[in-house]
């Protein structure tokens, strides 16, 4: 035992014993004409110690993001400028290969810079495991809803058949997505990968794969599929086209979630627009044409900007491939300015989809006019695409760009949280209220991403999932209310609990879940994001907390006015009854799931955390 201990001690001490100490002189010439570090480029081995010794003048040592930066942002720091003395670089900075740039703050502009090359100099590229599956699960996931679309279309002269086909297809997709979620597991890297080369000369391929980030999204899409179909069970107007488009929408969104190739990602991203446009334009409310138009043009324009960003990434990487994995590997060679511009382009594309204030104006229109099934997909899945895209496509290849835009993202997120909540408070239309609350909730998720920490990112993904369950449920409620009372105007409602006690219970559960009641899924997400945000930004947390107070306010107000209180006299309440079976079951399922994921968050949290850790690893932040 003693020997073993000694051996262990030796092993631990061996590297330390071998460590060499290097000295860098921090000085200036006597006449002040030149300021220098000597040597300015220092080559050290991994584990070596670097000591700085002051000569003439008052200097300090601060890490710089690159060889041209003029100020200290983050990293090692020797303190305020000092005269004489010495300082040793903390040991953790020389533990891995990489290049450390630093400068002297008062004299950076006079060219007082230096760099330390540790080991090979290149930051080690984190290895991300790629696991190709033996069975093409993901292809089936994409093909089955597509086949369902055509099948529905084939039965277009049959009023009853399309909905049965759609339900069958979505149930099959649900089973597949559960399987995929389970198979994806919670270890690092991509799983179930498939690759079909589409264009070898440009490196486009249908590269599919899931990780802890996409698997929950696939699961969410799978869950919402049958619920949407059930909720639209009584659709009378052109049912074949309606259900066909719903299934097509499901294919496209699943495609966005499982593809790992920028080109194909963009392809699916745009395909999402087409069925959604028709869903709003044909089955929507009175102003549906305007809403559909606005939705299409807003998101299309933004995604064109995003496309230019993708192309710039592709060319700058020079790897002749659109694969996200390969391009992320090149991120070390992207210049900071380039990263800023490209991140800005991608962020515009994603922010419109999220949507963040000030790009949000299409959302309330689209939601209010969309049929309930359209709203469910819009709120449940489509709003997630933006944030998912940000995490999947923008963070890993553009770490410096992302860091540069952290303040912007935080500001937009906070504004969205408060603005969304405040506008919700002012709405009387139940559906509009839910629409604005989506903006607020997605703001919380963006806030999580903006922290660029594992907990924050994980909280954001959890928020996407939780909101993806509860927001559709709120739209379903709005649908039920409109269906039975002919109005969604909250002041006109009241006392629904007396007429439909069971349904009202579900309403209450969903509203409380949405406002973040402990024990429900949203709470887990909000807690993680807020903790992460507090760690990175301190008391700025009070602003989003204030938004949460408003959120609680409008949820409770709406609940109290519509469900409780005396029976409304302004609308005809005679016909109010319990929600129909095809309305109750989806609501009940969602409440169950929200509680399940609120009580047992680790089911989702473990894969999500691993995936977020991978992203941060690729960004070089861990």
């Amino acid at each position, binding site marked *: 035992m003693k020997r073993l201990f000694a051996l262990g001690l030796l092993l631990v001490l061996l590297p330390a014993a071998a460590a060499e100490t290097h000295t860098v002189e921090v000085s200036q010439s006597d006449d002040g004409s030149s300021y220098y570090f000597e040597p300015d480029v220092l080559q050290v081995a991994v584990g070596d110690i670097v000591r700085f010794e002051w000569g003439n003048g008052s200097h300090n040592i601060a890490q710089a993001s690159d060889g041209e930066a003029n100020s200290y942002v983050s990293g090692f720091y020797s303190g305020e400028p000092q005269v004489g003395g010495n300082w040793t670089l903390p040991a953790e900075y020389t533990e891995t290969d990489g290049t450390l740039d630093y400068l002297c703050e008062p004299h950076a502009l006079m060219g007082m810079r230096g760099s330390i090359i540790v080991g090979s100099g290149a930051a080690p590229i984190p290895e991300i495991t790629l696991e190709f599956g033996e069975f093409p699960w993901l292809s089936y996931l994409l093909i089955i809803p597509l086949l369902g679309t055509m099948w529905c279309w084939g039965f277009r002269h049959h009023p009853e058949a399309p909905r049965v086909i759609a339900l069958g297809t979505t149930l099959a997709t649900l089973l597949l997505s559960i399987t995929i979620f389970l198979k994806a597991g919670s270890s690092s890297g991509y799983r179930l990968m498939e690759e079909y080369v589409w264009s070898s000369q440009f490196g486009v391929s249908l590269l599919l794969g899931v990780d802890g980030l996409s698997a929950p999204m696939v699961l969410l899409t799978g869950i919402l599929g049958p619920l949407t179909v059930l909720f639209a069970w009584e659709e009378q107007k052109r049912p074949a086209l309606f259900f066909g488009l719903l299934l097509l929408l499901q294919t496209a969104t699943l495609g966005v979630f499982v593809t790992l190739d920028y080109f194909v990602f963009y392809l699916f991203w745009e395909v999402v627009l087409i069925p959604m446009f028709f869903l709003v334009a044909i089955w929507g409310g009175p102003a549906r044409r305007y809403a559909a138009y606005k939705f299409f043009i807003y998101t299309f324009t933004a995604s064109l900007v995003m496309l*230019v960003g993708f192309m710039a990434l592709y060319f700058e990487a020079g790897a002749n491939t659109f694969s996200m994995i390969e391009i992320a590997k090149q991120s070390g060679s992207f210049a900071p300015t380039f990263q800023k511009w490209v991140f800005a382009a991608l962020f515009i594309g994603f922010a419109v989809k999220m949507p963040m204030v000030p790009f949000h104006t299409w959302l309330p229109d689209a939601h209010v006019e969309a049929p309930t099934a359209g709203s469910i997909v819009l709120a449940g899945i489509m709003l997630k695409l933006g944030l998912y895209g940000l995490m999947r496509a923008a963070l890993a290849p553009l770490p410096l760009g992302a860091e540069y835009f952290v303040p912007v993202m935080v500001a937009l997120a906070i504004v969205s949280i408060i603005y969304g909540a405040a506008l919700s408070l002012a709405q009387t239309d139940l559906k509009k209220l839910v629409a604005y609350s989506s903006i607020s909730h997605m703001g919380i998720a963006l806030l999580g991403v903006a922290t660029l920490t594992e907990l924050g990112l994980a909280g954001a993904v959890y928020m996407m999932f939780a909101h993806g369950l509860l927001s559709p449920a709120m739209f379903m409620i709005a649908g039920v209310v409109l269906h039975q009372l002919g109005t969604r105007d909250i002041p006109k409602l009241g006392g629904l609990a007396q007429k439909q006690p069971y349904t009202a219970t579900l309403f209450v559960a969903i509203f409380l879940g949405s406002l973040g009641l402990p024990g429900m899924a949203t709470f887990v997400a909000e807690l993680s994001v807020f903790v992460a945000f507090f760690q990175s930004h301190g008391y700025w947390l009070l602003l989003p907390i204030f938004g949460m107070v408003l959120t609680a306010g409008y949820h409770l107000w709406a609940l109290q006015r519509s469900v409780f209180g005396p029976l409304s006299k302004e609308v005809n309440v005679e016909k109010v009854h319990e929600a129909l079976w095809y309305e109750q079951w989806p609501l009940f399922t969602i409440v169950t799931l929200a509680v399940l994921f609120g009580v047992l968050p680790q089911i989702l949290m473990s894969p999500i955390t691993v995936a977020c850790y991978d992203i941060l690893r690729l960004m070089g932040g861990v």
Partner: protein
Amino acid sequence: MGLELLFPEFLLAAAALLLPGTYLLHRNARLCGQLAVATLAVALSATWVQWFGEGLVTPASYFGHLQIDVFSQLFKFAFLTIAFVTGIVSLAYLGELPHRPEFFTLLLTATLGMLIVASASDLLTLFIGLELAAFSSYALVAFQKRDDGSTEAGAKYLLIGSFSSALTLYGISLLYGLTGTLSIASLAAHNWNSDFSGALFVAILFITGGLGFKVAAVPFHAWAPDVYQGAPTPVTAFLAAGSKAMGFVALLRIFVVALGSMLIEWQLLLGIIAIVTMTVGNLAALRQQDIGRMLAYSSVAQAGYILAAFPAMTELALGGAIFHTLVHAVMKGGAFVIVAAVGIAGLGYGIDGYRGLAQRSQLLALTMTVCLLSLVGIPPFGGFFSKFWLFYGIFQAGMAGQQWLLWLVIAGVLNSALSLFYYLRVIRNIYTEDPQGEARPFGEHTRYPALAVLLLLILLIPLEYDYLLTLCRDAAASLL
């Protein structure tokens, strides 16, 4: 070296001569139409066999006037296909109108002119081909001589067209004066003396003016809306798909091949024309109420996108431009096939005529929607792929050195977003409105072309774009 590669040209020439004779002997107009379509089908399959069956290894040159290479075969194939589809649609569209044999004869001669342009290897042959196609199309546009619009469109097309070809001719004569040769290959090899750059620029201006008319580039686009609106719709489809592609073939031959070494002289000129063309085209299309005029202005805008590839002058950009030219022929041709069908059904040529089209015919509505979304460049339809690789090529050239080319990409992308406004208006009418008024049923003859266009745009081009783009890049490589 046999003449068998020129078989399609000989066949069309012979048929164009025989057709009137057949009519005089048999007095059977319907037979003449079918004969013309059959001729086109034979020529098409002959090109197909020569191209794919035997494979085209080395370019074949005939008397220094014609040259058959990958580029020319590609476009010959495209022109014959366009003429074939136009022929089929015309059979139905013309119905029992008088003078049908003349119509089909003119269709054959116009196609012959295009084939000659596709394989011309000196400026004389090129010019003769252009004029042959142009004269035939003047008459085709004015074909319905009892119809005011058709005649007026014909007169306008004639006057502007011959004016512009006079300009081209003058430009060619200056070019000849500067170099002493008419052969495109010798022009390309010419050792330019920089003293003449002023005169060369004038020659380039004249040629740009003349060929800019063919592709409807701003400021030579004014004829397009009038002619597209007034001409019989199959002819419009033929012009929009074929004549425009022919203009690009001529532009490619003259600018990229003959004047490729003097890139610096015309690069900026074409770049500016490209940006102005796409912007003006899209802005003007926004407020059109007539579908023909709207598609005409959209055609102007598309010419702008394609022209943007010229200043880049890389194999990839030009390959993308050729690809987009061909896909544009499919989309625009397809859209006009639907416009013709809607017109025959008595629904008129306004955008309002498309209200509730989805409830009248699912297939036509779907095809129209796919064609329009393709024109915007929305995935997953064919137009997205050609447009993407077109801008990809320009982007690459821009990243490789000439930064200003990136502005062309940005302008193109913004314009695509702008174009969405007017295409969506038609799509909205098709799906969200209820049909108004009675319409005759749509015939079988438009169904098949519509279905073919649909399959091309949603299956063949998206799935096989890699192969098609390789073909286009080979064609571009044979130019450079």
